[in-house]
C-alpha cells in the first residue's frame, strides 16, 4: 500500500523519459536523504516495510527517489543484517565432530538394510554379485564397497496386452482374424538373474508374450479361440513364455495368462451375431417340433385308450352298445340344430337358405344323411 504509489511514480518518470532515477522536479535530494538517514538507524521497526511506511509522508512531501538514497539505505540494511549473524570463526572441533557425525550417519544408512517380506536384497561388492539378502534387517559393508539393490519378488506384476477399447488383431490358424486382449501375470524368481541377465526384462516379457500368443493362436481355429479353446490357449502361452524366458535366464515366473477378450473383429461382428441368432432360431424350431411331438403322442395314446375302453364294452354287448351310442349321438346332435322334416319326396323345398349362414355346414341332401345313417345303422 505504501510502496505502490512510489512505483507508479517511478514509472511515470520512466514514461517521461527524463532519466531513469534522476530527480525530475526540483526536489531536494539531500533533504530526502537526510530524512532517510534519520529514519534508518531507528531501532523501532525491524521489518523493511516499516521504514518506508514511517518515512512515507516526508517522501511524499519531498517527492524524491534517488539512486544514492536507495544505495545508502540498502547498505545500512545489509550491514545491519550482517552484524546479526556474527562473524566469529567456527571452532575446528565442531567441524571435526560434524564430519565424524556425517560419516557415522553415512555408514549407518548404507550398511544397515531393512528388507521387506516381499523383497530380496541383491548385494554387489564393488559391482560384483556377492549374495542375496532375505527379508529382515541385514548389514553390509558401507556404500562404496557394497551396494544393495532391492527387488520385489513376491509382488505379482501384470502386463496388459491389447485393450477393450482398441483392436489387437491376430491371425488364427484358419487364417481368420481375431481381436484379442489378454494379460500376463509374472513375478521375479531369481532376483540376481532378473537384474543382471536381461537388458530390458519387462520389455522382453512383453515381446515374448506377444510372440507366444501369436504362435498359440496360429495353432487353433477362430472358433476354438473364441469358444472353448481359451483355457487351452492360456496354458499354452504360459508354458511357452516360461520356456522362452528360462532360456533367456530371465529369472521370472509366469504365474498366469488370462485372455480377457477374444472376439471377432468389429468389422465382421454382425455376421458372427447372425450365426448365434441362427443357432437360436434353429433351436427354437426344434423345440417347437418336440413340443408338437409330445403333444401328439399323448393325444394319440389318449384316443387309442379311449377307443379301447369303449371297444371292451362294445364286445360284451355289441348290438345294444351300438344302438345306444347311435341314439345318444343323434340326440345330442339334433337337439341343438334347426330341423326341417320333409315328408313328400319330389317336393323341392324352397328353403330360406339365406338364414343358414354357413351353407357348407348344413346337411341339405337327405340322401346323404340317409346314406350316413344307413352306414351307421349297419
Amino acid at each position, binding site marked *: 500500500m505504501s510502496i505502490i504509489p512510489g512505483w507508479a511514480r517511478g514509472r511515470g518518470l520512466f514514461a517521461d523519459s527524463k532519466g531513469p532515477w534522476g530527480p525530475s522536479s526540483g526536489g531536494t535530494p539531500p533533504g530526502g536523504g537526510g530524512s532517510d538517514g534519520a529514519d534508518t538507524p531507528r531501532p523501532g521497526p525491524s521489518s523493511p516495510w516499516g521504514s518506508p511506511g514511517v518515512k512515507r509522508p516526508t517522501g511524499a512531501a519531498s517527492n524524491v527517489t534517488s539512486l544514492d538514497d536507495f544505495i545508502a539505505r540498502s547498505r545500512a540494511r545489509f550491514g545491519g543484517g550482517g552484524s546479526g549473524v556474527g562473524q566469529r570463526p567456527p571452532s575446528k572441533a565442531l567441524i571435526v565432530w560434524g564430519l565424524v557425525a556425517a560419516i557415522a550417519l553415512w555408514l549407518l544408512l548404507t550398511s544397515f538394510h531393512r528388507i521387506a517380506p516381499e523383497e530380496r536384497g541383491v548385494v554387489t561388492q564393488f559391482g560384483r*554379485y556377492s549374495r542375496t539378502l532375505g527379508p529382515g534387517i541385514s548389514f553390509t559393508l558401507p556404500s562404496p564397497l557394497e551396494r544393495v539393490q532391492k527387488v520385489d519378488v513376491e509382488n505379482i506384476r501384470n502386463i496388459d496386452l491389447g485393450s477393450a477399447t482398441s483392436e489387437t488383431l491376430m491371425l488364427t490358424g484358419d487364417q481368420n482374424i481375431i481381436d484379442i486382449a489378454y494379460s500376463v501375470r509374472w513375478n521375479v524368481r531369481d532376483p540376481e538373474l532378473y537384474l543382471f541377465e536381461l537388458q530390458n526384462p519387462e520389455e522382453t516379457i512383453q515381446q515374448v508374450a506377444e510372440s507366444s500368443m501369436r504362435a498359440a493362436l496360429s495353432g487353433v481355429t477362430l472358433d476354438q479361440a473364441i469358444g472353448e479353446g481359451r483355457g487351452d490357449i492360456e496354458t499354452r502361452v504360459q508354458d511357452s513364455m516360461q520356456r522362452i524366458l528360462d532360456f533367456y535366464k530371465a529369472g521370472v515366473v509366469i504365474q498366469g495368462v488370462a485372455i480377457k477378450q477374444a472376439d471377432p473383429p468389429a468389422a465382421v461382428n454382425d455376421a458372427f451375431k447372425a450365426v448365434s441368432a441362427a443357432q437360436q432360431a434353429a433351436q427354437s424350431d426344434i423345440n417347437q417340433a418336440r413340443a408338437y411331438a409330445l403333444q401328439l403322442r399323448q393325444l394319440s395314446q389318449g384316443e387309442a385308450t379311449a377307443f379301447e375302453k369303449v371297444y371292451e364294452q362294445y364286445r360284451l354287448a355289441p348290438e345294444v352298445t351300438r344302438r345306444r351310442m347311435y341314439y345318444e349321438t343323434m340326440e*345330442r346332435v339334433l337337439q341343438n340344430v334347426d330341423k326341417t322334416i320333409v315328408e313328400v319326396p319330389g317336393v323341392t323345398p324352397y328353403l330360406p337358405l339365406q338364414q343358414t349362414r354357413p351353407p357348407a355346414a348344413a346337411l341339405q341332401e337327405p340322401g346323404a344323411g340317409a346314406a350316413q345313417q344307413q352306414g351307421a345303422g349297419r
Partner: protein
Amino acid sequence: MTNVILRRPLLSAIIALVVLLTLLSSVRIVPETSQALIVRFGKPDRILNRYQPGAPIGSEGAGLAFRVPFADEIVWIDKRVRDVDMERQMVLSTDQLRLEVDAFARYRVVDPLRMYIRARSEENVSTALRPILGSELRNELGRRPFADLLSPERQGAMENIRRGLDRVARQYGVQIIDVRIKRADLPDGSPLQSAYERMKTAREQEARSIRAEGARTAQVIRAEADALAAQTYAASFGKDPAFYDFYRAMQAYQRTFVGDDGKARPTNVILSPQNQFLREFTQGGGR
C-alpha cells in the same frame, strides 16, 4: 613433512588432490552387467568380466579393476542379453499373399574386442543387424506358402533365420540367441478387407446352414411323431375296423354339429321321415 605442509598449505593441498584423483582414477568398479575392455594408448589390452557361457553370476570378472591412469581407457560393453526390434517387414508368400511381420532378435556380445573394433558400440551393432534380420526374414519366409507363415516356429524357419543372422552377427562378436515373430498381420487395405469379407460370407453360410439344419431336424421330429401316432392308432383301431368306423362317425357327428364346447353350431338339418333316427315315427309309432 608437517613443516612443509604448514609452510605451503595451498601447494600441498593441490598435490594431495592430484594424488587422490590419480588414485581414484586408477580404480574402477566393473558392474556385473558390463564387460570392460581396457584399451592402453589405443591398443586393446585386456577384457574384464567377459561373458563366459554357463558361468554363474558373481564369478571372477566383476568387481574392482585397476587401470593405469591417463594411459588406460575403459570401454564399457553390455554383458546382458539385448534385443533388436525389427521394423515391420512385408513378406510375400509363395502363393502371392502378403503378410506384415514384426520380429525381434535377442543377442549378447560374446567377443567385446571384436565388437569394439568392428562396431564401436552396441547401438551400432543393433543398427547393423536390423536390416539383415529383415532380409533374412523375408528370404526365409518368402519360400513358404501363406498358411505356413502363421506358425513358422513349427517348420524350423525361425531357427534358419537365427542361424543366418548369427553368421553375420559373429562378425561383430555378437551371438544371436533367439529370433521370434512378435506379430504377423495382414496388410491394411484390400488384403484385410478381403479377409473380412471371407470371414463374413463364411459366417453367413454357417448361419444359413444352421437354420436349415434346424428346420430339417424339426420336420423330422414332427414326422416321427406323426408316424408314431399313426402306429398307435392303427394298433388300437385295427382291432375292429367296423366298430371303429361307427365309433369315429359318432365322434365326427358330435364334433361337427355340437362341437367340443357343447354349443350348437348354427345348422339347419332337413330330415326325411325315412331317416333311421325317425323310423319310429313311421313304423312303430302306431304299433
